[in-house]
């Protein structure tokens, strides 16, 4: 009981703290890759605090509702991850957050929000099946969807699920909206879509979406850590390397349109998953 409470606390507090730090590191790293110095490590927190203190303006009150639901779903997903619950259930719950973010954007009539929202739906359409298949692969290897069991597996999953790990990395580019798949919104204003999905979220409500994003980042880095869970060093190494590669890809590629995204995800992603899954069925 106490354990549960502690894990819930860790999930709720440490989650966004860690997520914000990752975001700060991301920005520094990106700046270095572009020969800039970049902002201080704590800059994402300053940004969110500043947004939080801005005047609240809304285009539609339901955006506030959606933003709160997004944060709620993202934080519940992370808490469940810390409680080492069912991985598939966690994916479902984070999808709730993603959907609410889209519904919030659709509730504004601005074409920028609308198009951004539809692109985000296409992103969900691209990464969601891949994440489910990765989870299925993890189940086939460990015999459980429960993270508790997966963490106690005595062999790094990467050995048996190499292609599925690639698929996970691929899905993460789409999920975390890194270039070339930052279609719906990105950290830098779009030329064609302004801020896309987030165009009409503003002030404290925008701050909420940022916090929700931090929860998601930590959740998915946790997902990556499952692939080398035999010791702490392996876990940290795999997370750091994966995220570094994500940032690298983000910086060296140009944005693609949704046809490429969906096409790649559903052909290459599915093929790789199928090959790896067939191995697992065979063994």
């Amino acid at each position, binding site marked *: 009981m106490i354990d549960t409470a502690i894990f819930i606390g860790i999930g709720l507090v440490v989650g966004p703290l860690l997520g914000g730090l990752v975001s700060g590191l991301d920005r520094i790293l990106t700046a270095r890759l572009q020969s800039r110095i970049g902002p201080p490590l704590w800059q994402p927190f300053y940004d969110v605090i500043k947004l939080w203190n801005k005047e609240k303006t809304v285009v539609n009150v339901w955006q506030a509702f959606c933003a709160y639901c997004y944060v709620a779903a993202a934080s519940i997903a992370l808490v469940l991850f810390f409680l080492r619950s069912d991985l598939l259930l966690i994916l479902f719950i984070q999808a709730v957050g993603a959907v609410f973010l889209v519904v919030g954007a659709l509730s504004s009539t601005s074409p920028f929000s609308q198009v951004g929202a539809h692109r985000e739906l296409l992103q969900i*359409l691209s990464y969601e099946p891949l994440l489910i298949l990765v989870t299925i692969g993890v189940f086939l290897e460990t015999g459980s969807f429960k993270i508790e069991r997966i963490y106690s597996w005595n062999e790094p999953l990467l050995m048996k699920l190499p292609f599925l790990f690639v698929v996970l990395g691929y899905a993460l580019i789409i999920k975390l909206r890194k270039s070339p798949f930052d279609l719906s919104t990105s950290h830098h204003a779009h030329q064609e879509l302004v801020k896309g999905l987030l165009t009409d979220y503003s002030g404290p409500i925008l701050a909420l979406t940022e916090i929700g994003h931090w929860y998601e980042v930590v959740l998915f880095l946790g997902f990556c850590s499952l692939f080398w869970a035999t010791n702490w060093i392996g876990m940290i190494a795999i997370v750091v390397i994966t995220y570094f590669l994500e940032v690298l890809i983000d910086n060296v590629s140009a944005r693609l349109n949704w046809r490429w995204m969906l096409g790649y995800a559903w052909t290459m992603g599915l093929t790789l998953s199928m090959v790896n899954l067939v191995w697992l069925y065979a063994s």
Partner: protein
Amino acid sequence: MVKEMLTVEQLSAILIILPFLAAIVCYLIRVSGVRSIVILITGGVLITSAVLLIPLTPFSLSPQPFFGVSIHVIVQALDFLLLLIILYFGFKHRHIVIKALALFQIIFLLYFEFFLIQDKPDTSTLYCDHLTLVMVLIVSIVGSLICFQAIPYMKNHEEHLRLKRSRQHQFFFVMMLFLSAMNGLVLSNDMLIFYFFFELTTLCSFLLIAHDGTKEAIKNAVRALWMNSLGGGAFILALVGIYRETGTLELQQIINSGNIGTGVYLLSLALLCFAAFTKSAQFPFQSWLLGAMVAPTPVSALLHSSTMVKVGVYLVLRLSPVMRETFLSQSVALIGAFTFLAAAALAVGQSNGKKVLAYSTISNLGLIFACAGLNTPESIVAGMLLLVFHAIIKALLFLCVGAIEQHIASRDIEDMRGLYADMPLTALMTVMGVIMMIMPPFGILLGKWMAMEAAASNLYVIIMIALGSSLTVMYWARWAGTLMSDPFAGRFKPERQPFLTWGALGSLCAGAGLLSTAAPWLYIQMIVPALSRAYLPPYTTQNGILENPYGAFAVFPLSLVAVLGFVVAILAVKRAAKARVVKPYLSGLQVAEPGVFTGPMNQLVKAEAQNYYLSSIFGEKKLTTWINLGAGVLLTLMVGGAL
């Protein structure tokens, strides 16, 4: 008390015969007041009887002869009458397939009744276990609520059509008859009686689809009739096969004696599955259900949620124990998963709200078939949960769309933009319906979670389910967002609707929500007893957490957190309502008029955006032919593989 006063015989009689009597009264007494009262009382009694049946389940019984004539003989006579009526419609609409199939069925039935069956043993005619009970509850409660809402709906409908003479007596005659047929079907244990009610639902759906009498309505009704007659034909063939192999027509006896494994027997089972697919409008038979949309919306609600299409999934779930570990079962899983994916893809390409609902029904039924075909204890539980929750939520969504359609005179999603400003409560209920379709901790997602975990061992099925469920999220989320779009209406003020409409919508919405929270209870009280003896109960329930050795779904804790999150979010909405309201960003100078900005040269520019329907990929024209072809191949595989 009441419980002791009514026996199972009386309750079954009420459930089957009362709606039939009410139908006759509706037809004969053409006064709207009387009709409304009859429908309300019948619905009330049906709901009460279904609930009273709960503690008395399971039971089996053979009714006493009726004025000296045995029930079998009565049903036999009615059966021929029914087929003759279908034959009549075949001649009336000059449809060769209907005529041929009706004659085919009459001939086989004659052969069956007079040559094949030598002595009629004392079979138990009716049987009710918990699976039956679940169906009876769905039919009686959801079906009655739909009929209640149909009262104000049809009044509006006829005013809109400016009919000289009301045709509501016919409409409600068939609606009530339908409920009677459904209750009869799920309660019958004798396959011949089952077959009679099976055909009766076909006839009822034909009459309901044709109700408005337009050219299109007749055309679509005729299509529904021939497609479902195909199912009827397959059914009677299967009966002949099963009787020859097993020597019995008692459903329970067939199931309990297990798979006897001969070719003819398996082929008969495959034909029963085929019949189920036609009833449940699986590909390539989807077109009759899509065509059924021309009927008044309560008809769609009834066909899609609690009756007709549920017959197919009920039949296959019922037969699943004898299909365990057969190629047939695997084929059913494959066809179901394929339909789930294909229908979801087609739904993405639709902007017509009712069509989206129709494809979503086909898709969800496909998932239930996939669950039945996977045939593990987990997947059967998943299938039953999906069956229950889909019935309630789909009824809710159809009734909502019906109310919306009568208000805005369109069923296009694009025309529902900003509906919240106009019909806040209906819009909210529709959004709730959508949320319950795609989000945990609600029942459908619980079922989907179980289905996915059960499907993990089948590569093709799991891939199709994974893809299909992402497409599902896409078409539902798009719709919900469109409904909640600005302009912001200010204070929440529910629109005016007849009391019966609010009553039906409210109870379906609340019912689905509460039942989702009570899912562990539902699982223990209804689903576990409904499992055949061949399956061990797969989940434990502790502290409201459904758990098996490799997965857990925390229903109570998540529902609690969801309620908390919902309250916080609603409070946020209240606070946000006090905030400054600004116009959406349009990258130009804002003007007072919504959606307009000052562009170059001081010209006013209207900003517009529409939803993505991606018809270049997911359009009906692009996909339907290929999907039908694929489904045809899979069906051939299923029937041929059984040989």
